[in-house]
């Protein structure tokens, strides 16, 4: 793994959103922030599918937007193909913009309802001033063929409302591919789709990845599809990565108490499960990202903490556990496992 080419690198990335509590807050010394992403680092290798999983509000979408520079980070660095793009002005980002793109959760909301399929897919070409009308038709037709929306003539002039959910997502994928990107952020691309269409879209994304040597950042809350679709999984909790390893390791050998709870909560299509209650080893509810607990941020929900030795308890309370390699290529941020 180590000698593979790194395409995207996040270094201690942070995004804090200030909260406006009212006019008086101007005079207050202390400002309040939503710490959506609070210092995360990872590498994404070329050609792999890297997954961010976590509950809603854990900062996974914000991370995706940061990596695409749709948001400016508060702190930290983003390195894309060995170039630091953290603070690059927008005008010099044109090449970066061509090399990256995004597929969003709701394909209907992601399209202008008054655009035809041709206009939707060719818009990136228009913006980047590529091709005459005839050339654009040709490019769009090829893309439609790639995402298997055939016969092409039938789809080219349709409007989004005339398409089914799966077809809409295919159009969005075609648009994402229009500028021949290398890195695509896919934010819950199948969570709104039906089961059988879901499998079909994932297969399409996989085929495209092989054909075009694409790199995906796959963002989801669904661990089952993450395991099926991704090479490596990073589990996020309150703006931090708590565990990072291969998809198989995360599913079969979770180490961090939070990952263990997530894994235990995933339902399986097995009828014998209805005869027993599902035990999820976690307490309470996710705290607000405004007042994150000091020390380990999982502390108030952790069941391991309750039975931990005093020495470790003290660490949990005072110091944030760093993401540490505890097994081969298996990174965990929990004091119980850090030697």
């Amino acid at each position, binding site marked *: 793994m180590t000698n593979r080419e790194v395409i995207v690198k996040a270094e201690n990335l942070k995004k804090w959103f200030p909260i406006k509590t009212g006019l008086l807050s101007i005079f207050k010394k202390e400002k309040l922030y939503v710490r959506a992403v609070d210092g995360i680092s990872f590498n994404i290798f070329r050609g792999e599918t890297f997954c961010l999983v976590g*509950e*809603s509000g854990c900062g996974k979408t914000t991370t995706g937007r940061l990596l695409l520079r749709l948001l400016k980070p508060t702190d930290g660095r983003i390195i894309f193909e060995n170039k630091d793009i953290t603070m690059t002005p927008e005008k010099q980002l044109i090449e970066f913009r061509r090399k990256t793109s995004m597929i969003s959760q709701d394909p209907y909301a992601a399209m202008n309802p008054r655009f035809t399929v041709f206009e939707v897919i060719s818009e990136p070409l228009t913006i980047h001033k590529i091709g005459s009308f005839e050339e654009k038709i040709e490019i769009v037709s090829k893309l439609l063929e790639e995402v298997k929306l055939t016969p092409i003539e039938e789809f080219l002039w349709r409007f989004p409302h005339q398409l*089914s*959910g*799966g077809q809409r997502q295919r159009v969005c994928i075609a648009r994402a591919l229009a500028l021949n990107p290398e890195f695509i952020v896919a934010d819950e691309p199948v969570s709104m789709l*039906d*089961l*059988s*269409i*879901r*499998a*079909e879209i*994932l*297969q399409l994304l996989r085929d495209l990845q092989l054909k075009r040597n694409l790199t995906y950042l796959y963002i989801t*809350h*669904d*661990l*089952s*599809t993450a*395991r*099926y*679709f991704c090479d490596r999984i990073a589990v996020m909790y309150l703006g931090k990565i708590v565990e990072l390893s291969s998809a*198989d390791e995360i*599913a*079969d050998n979770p180490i961090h108490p939070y990952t263990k*709870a*997530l*894994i*235990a*909560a*995933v*339902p*399986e*299509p*097995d*009828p014998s*499960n*209805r005869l027993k*209650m*599902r035990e*999820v080893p*976690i307490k309470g*509810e*996710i705290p607000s990202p405004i007042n994150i607990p000091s020390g380990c941020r999982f502390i108030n929900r952790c069941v391991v903490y309750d039975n931990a030795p005093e020495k470790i308890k003290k660490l949990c309370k005072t110091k944030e556990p760093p993401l540490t390699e505890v097994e081969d290529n298996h990174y965990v941020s929990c004091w119980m496992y850090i030697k």
Partner: protein
Amino acid sequence: MKELLEVRELKTYFILDERRIVKAVDNVSIRLSQGESLGLAGESGCGKSTLGYSILTCIPRPGKIVGGEILFEGENVANKPESWLRRHYRWIKVSMVFQGAMNSLNPVLTVGRQLSEPLVYHKNMTYKEARKYVVEALKLVGLPEHIVDRYPHELSGGMKQRAVIAMALILKPKLVIADEPTTALDVVVQAQIINLLKNLTQREGMGLILITHDLSVLSEVVDKVAIMYAGKIVEYGTSEQIYLTPKHPYTQKLLRAVPRLHVKVDKLEFIPGAPPNLISPPPGCRFHPRCPIFKEKSNFKGLCDIEEPPLIEVEPEHKVACWIYAKR
């Protein structure tokens, strides 16, 4: 066990105009005994929610029951007048956890006030008197008493969903229909809601119809499963029968499309094509244009694409609407 609900050859159509009639539920029969739980599963647009609304006799316009019977404790509620339904049936005998209901709570009323409403309207209680029962219902779903005086925005998603379930339980109905109760929730909260539903059916003896497209969630809760496709039930059986020995090609394919956390699959299967338009569904078996067996084997030509398959009992309680299992 006492029969609680029997739906006989129900037809619920949406009449858009003279030419366009959407046959959302077409000749569907189901049975449910007291304290039993039934799952309705299928892709979006297969009519599972419409079937739920039909049982509640609360079908959005222009939907209408055009045929069949809904027998609740032996009484046909499909042809009862509105006033009777309101006074004796809806929410009293059958209630529903609507899809996305947790986001439809009234933001300017406290949770307690909203939960009291059925008691005030149906049992002529004052809001003060109702409080006791509201607290009881909240306890049943695992919420502390102080929630009564909270507003919806003060609750988390899981708590709101619990409150909505408490609302459905407030008049102690015999049957609760839950439409996608866990879809918008995170896995940890989803597991808690699943446990709650299990508890209610297994310990409190509540009848449950769980409507969802998520086959994993379904298997965690219900005793019996009906798989719907294009307005019809294509397979019906106990959980074990459906999940372990599915018979209908659609059910088999659907189950193979479920990604699993603890089983490594290289390639998930999918069903090519899309569900049919319910205004003019294909003749014969509605699944035949997408059916792998119809495509492979020539001896079904002239049968599946012309004649509709009946529900065939392949083993006790296990019924399949597929010509493969017909004795000819």
